[in-house]
Each structure stands twice: as structure tokens, then as C-alpha cells.
């Protein structure tokens, strides 16, 4: 039997049993769309995290106070800190070859007010290099002063949301705001930025790191951001050399104690990537179970269909159809149904992803080609697998028996 005839015959059978076909198609379409939608969401989350890391700036190192230790049980913890990281430590790192910018950070929540308006925001004490390491730009005014690591100047830069909340559309440059008990002069406003790993950069206040020392009454740095030189620290090997130099520098300053942990942007990205890829696979697999259920349903209904069409199958065999031809016909009915349902499922999933994108425009919700191909392949494989038994049943129909009467 030629392929166009097989397809024509299968189409006729599917159309003849409209409700059965529709019910099966709905099951398969839901299964396929669930696989694509959920893996698309997983991929979107992965892409989102990747973008967030890129937003942190390229070639970024984050230095945490304390040495990462292996605990007896539970997740790894950061050990106690014998010595704090200080602004001087950060300044020292600036001299290391391969380092472009160093941004020491002291952070905390502080109540910021202007006139009658008050707002509690994340306040970051850093230097003028902070906006380079975070790949940020100013929308008006100027950056923190270059002397931020030396002098506690009472100046600040506002995030866009904070600016809008406190000043509306007024020009804030030169105006005075109160942060806790201190008065700061506004010298700049950051350009609009999204969230970055949970921190809303639109709703922050930047002050010189020395001012933050006074504000939060601590000399200890929360962390140090190090931007590597894209030319001199391009390869993994070069980056590792810089990391080693940083460890050595801090160790020397901390009297032989290696009491910091350096996390590279790449290692963070790799960790998240690995976690989210696994998560995507797991949810994809879970969604795939619905396809398995659809497959079992297809098998049962196909068996019923074969049982009801025994006379027709017997007739075809009497007219010259071989066992193989009969089996191909039954198989093609299922595969055609699954193929159509999968296309509907693909369309449905992409429509839902597009709808979700309207509500969450910052999430890169897209199902890559390989996910679509995989969902289709899984659906067709499940269909083939669960059609084997009905096809074999059909092939074994004894024509003499079923054509009696």
C-alpha cells in the first residue's frame, strides 16, 4: 500500500470516529504543550538568570569575607570571619595586574526622606567604580566622587524609582535628602534598570563607601566586586591567575590567613545553569508523563477500535493485505493522529508562551527548536510504542473467522 493511500485511509478512519479522534488529540495536544510550556518556562528562567549575570557586568569576581568550608552535614557554609574585609583591602586589589575596577561594598537598609516623603531602601556604599562593575549608566547628574574610598562626602546617587517617589518630575540634582540621621546632597540619578538577582536597582541609594561606614557604623565590607580587564584576563587560565593573585594579596594583608572566598561570575553562572537545566529536564520529564498517559489511552482505544473493525481488517486480508500492511495501517492511524495533535500542542504552547510574555516581558520565555523537536519525537515515539500491541492484534485477525456470516 502506497503512502498517500495509507494516509488517506487513516484520515478516513479518524474522521469516521470524530469524537474518539478529538478526545485523543486533546490528550496528546495537552501533553505536548505541557512539555513545551514547562521546558520553555525552565529555559526562560535559565536565560533570565544568564541575562542577570551578564547585567552584573562581564568578567566579574565577587569577594566574600570568610572562607567557604565543608560542613559535616547540610550545605557548605561560609566560615567565621577572623578579619573583616576593609576598604584598604579593596584599594590594594586595584594594583593587581588584570584588574580593571574594584568596588568595595557596604550595604544595608536605610530610611531615606525628602520633605514629608520617606522611603526605606537598600543603601549601597561604594565608589565611583560601582556603576562600571554593574554595567550601569547615569540618567542625570554625575557619579559618586573618585574620592569615595577616602572621604565620607555627604553626596548620593538615586535609583530611578527612588527619585520618582521622592521628587516626582522635579530636578533632584543639588537637593538635600536625609538618610537616617545624615543629610546628603543628590548629585546623580541612575538610568532605568531592571532587577538584578532579586535586587531592584531602580530602588537603591548609592553613597560613598566611607559615608556608608559612618551610616551603618561598620568598617567591614559586605563584599568587593572586581571587574577584570577584558584583554588581560580573557581566558579561564588568565582569570584563575588573577584570582590567585587576589588570594595572595589578601592573605598577605591578613597575616597569612586566606579568609576570603572568591566567586567568579562564570562559576556562579555555571552553577545556576546546571541547577536550572536539571530543573528544566525534571519538569519536562514530569510533563512527559502526561504523554505517557495519553499513550496508554491511545493503546486502549486502539485496541477497542481494532476489536470493532475485525471484519474490515479480515476483509482487507482477504483482498490481499499482508499482516505487515495491516499493521502499518493501524500504526499510521495513531501516528497521524499524534502528529496532528502535536502540531496543535506546539501551537497551543507557543500561544501560551506569547501570552505569558505579555504579562512578564522581562522573562525570555521561548521554547528553543530542540524542545519542540524533542516533544514531537517523544509524542511520536510514545504513539509508536503504544500502537505496537493494537497493530499486532490487527495483524493476527483471522480472516476466515471474522468474515463468516
Amino acid at each position, binding site marked *: 500500500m502506497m503512502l498517500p493511500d495509507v494516509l488517506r485511509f487513516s484520515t478516513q478512519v479518524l474522521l469516521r470516529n470524530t469524537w474518539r479522534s478529538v478526545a485523543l488529540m486533546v490528550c496528546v495536544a495537552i501533553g505536548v504543550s505541557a512539555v513545551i510550556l514547562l521546558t520553555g518556562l525552565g529555559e526562560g528562567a535559565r536565560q533570565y538568570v544568564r541575562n542577570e549575570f551578564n547585567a552584573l557586568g562581564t568578567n566579574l569576581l565577587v569577594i566574600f569575607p570568610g572562607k567557604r568550608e565543608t560542613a559535616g552535614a547540610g550545605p557548605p557554609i561560609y566560615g567565621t570571619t577572623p578579619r573583616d574585609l576593609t576598604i584598604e583591602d579593596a584599594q590594594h586589589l586595584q594594583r593587581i595586574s588584570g584588574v580593571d575596577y574594584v568596588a568595595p561594598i557596604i550595604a544595608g537598609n536605610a530610611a531615606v526622606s525628602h520633605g514629608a516623603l520617606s522611603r526605606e531602601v537598600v543603601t549601597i556604599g561604594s565608589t565611583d567604580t560601582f556603576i562600571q562593575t554593574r554595567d550601569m549608566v547615569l540618567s542625570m547628574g554625575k557619579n559618586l566622587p573618585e574620592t569615595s574610598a577616602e572621604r565620607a562626602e555627604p553626596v548620593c546617587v538615586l535609583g530611578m524609582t527612588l527619585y520618582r517617589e521622592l521628587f516626582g518630575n522635579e530636578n533632584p540634582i543639588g537637593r538635600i535628602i536625609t538618610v537616617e540621621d545624615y543629610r546628603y546632597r543628590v548629585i546623580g540619578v541612575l538610568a532605568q534598570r531592571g532587577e538584578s538577582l532579586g535586587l531592584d536597582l531602580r530602588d537603591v541609594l548609592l553613597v560613598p563607601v566611607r559615608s556608608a561606614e559612618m551610616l551603618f557604623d561598620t568598617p567591614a565590607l559586605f563584599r568587593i566586586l572586581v571587574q577584570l580587564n577584558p584583554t588581560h584576563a580573557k581566558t579561564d587560565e588568565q582569570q584563575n591567575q588573577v584570582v590567585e593573585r587576589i588570594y595572595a594579596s589578601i592573605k598577605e594583608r591578613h597575616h597569612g590567613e586566606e579568609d576570603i572566598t572568591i566567586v567568579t561570575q562564570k562559576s556562579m553562572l555555571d552553577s545556576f545553569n546546571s541547577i536550572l537545566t536539571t530543573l528544566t529536564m525534571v519538569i519536562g520529564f514530569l510533563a512527559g508523563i502526561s504523554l505517557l498517559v495519553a499513550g496508554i489511552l491511545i493503546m486502549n482505544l486502539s485496541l477497542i477500535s481494532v476489536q470493532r473493525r475485525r471484519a474490515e481488517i479480515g*476483509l482487507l486480508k482477504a483482498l*490481499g493485505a499482508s499482516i505487515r500492511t495491516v499493521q502499518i495501517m493501524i500504526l499510521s492511524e495513531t501516528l497521524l493522529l499524534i502528529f496532528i495533535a502535536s502540531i496543535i500542542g506546539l501551537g497551543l504552547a507557543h500561544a501560551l508562551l506569547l501570552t505569558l510574555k505579555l504579562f512578564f516581558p522581562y522573562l525570555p520565555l521561548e521554547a528553543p527548536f530542540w524542545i519542540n523537536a524533542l516533544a514531537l519525537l517523544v509524542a511520536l515515539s510514545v504513539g509508536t510504542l503504544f500502537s505496537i500491541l493494537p497493530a499486532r492484534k490487527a495483524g493476527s485477525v483471522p480472516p476466515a473467522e471474522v468474515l463468516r456470516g
Partner: protein
Amino acid sequence: MIQLDKINKYYKTGAETLRVLNDITLNIEQGDYISIMGPSGSGKSTLLNMLGLLDVFDTGSYRLEGVQTEVLDEEQRARIRGENIGFIFQSFQLIDRLTAAENVELPLILDEQSPKERKQKVAHVLAQVGLSDRATHRPGQMSGGQLQRVAIARAIVMQPQLILADEPTGNLDQKSGKEIVALLEELNRKGLTVVVVTHDLALGKRAKRRCVMVDGELSETPMGDDTAYESIVMGF
């Protein structure tokens, strides 16, 4: 054309073994027209299924066109059925969702003939059975006589040498039955070998060779003695 030699077929029903074909020996020549009559359960249809390679026998030998059929695998038997044998059934066995033309086309589709060739052949055989105007009708839209004519068209579309008809007039009124008998005779006149299993005495009598089957045993009654034949058959 056909040589059956001591064919036996047994069915097991629980502990009991039933012998449905008992040492059947029969030679059929090309162009023969044979009727097989007998009471229900005598093994007529089973014999017809053996002849059509739809069923297998337990012992004996069956040569069809010089081919020893018992050594054939299912694939080879299917090919012979498709190419050399046309079947006509009492209940027509047409597929409801297909039109008359599509039903007739089925053997050609299974034989992988080109659509153009198929169309020509279907039109030809539908004209031969007088149903050109019913080509697009579905079985539900046709009378019993027309349905059986579609089935005959399907049986001859592959131009087989052998037509096996199982009670071809069993579900028809007298007038339609006569038309079908006339059609079978016409096919036989054109050289086709026809084997008919029937309860219809009128049909049985018109065959060139008359066989009677009782309890799995086949016997041929001599031609020319209608009274003797009728007395045997009426005794069923």
C-alpha cells in the same frame, strides 16, 4: 487449476475434536463453475476458506495453479489472494465509510497500482456490473442487489482466475438473486473459474458441476439427473 488431495481439517472444542473436512479430494479446471451445497455446519464455508487461502488445513495437499500452498508463508498467501482470487460474501463485506468506487478500488490500492490505472479499472468493472451511476454512493444508499454487485465488481477488478462466492444470494430477494446468478454465469462464460457455496437450489442447479457436502465429506453428483440432485439437497 486446483488439486485438493485428502484435505482434513479439525477443530478442537474442549476435549472433543471435530473433523470439519474429511478427506476432501477435488480437481477444478480453469473455467469450471462448481456449486457446493449442503446443510449448515457441513463444512462448505470452511472448504471455501481453504480454497481462498483464508484458512489452513491440518493434513492433505492443495495445489493452486501448480503452487503447493501449504508451504507458503502468510505474506505469499496474501499476495496470491490479492492477485488470483476474488471473494464474494453473503453479507457483502463492504466498508460503510467508502463509496462503491472506493470499495471496488481496495484490492488495487493494496496491489499498489497507480491512481490513474485504478480509476480506469474501477470504472470498467462498475460498468460491467451495471453500477456506473452508483460509483459515488455509499453502501447505506444502495439496495442489497446493488451491494452484491459492488462486491462482485471488487472481486473481479484484479482480473483473478478464481471467484469464490459464499452464499452470494443469501441476503437477496429473488429478483436480485437472479441478477447475481446471471452475473456469475456471465463471468464464468468469460473464462473465470467460479466456486459457489449456496443453500439456493436454483443457483446450485445452474452450476456446471454440482457438489454436495455432508458432515465434512464432499461428493459430486452427476450432471443431467436433476431429480436425484434435488432429492439429496431437499433432504438437508
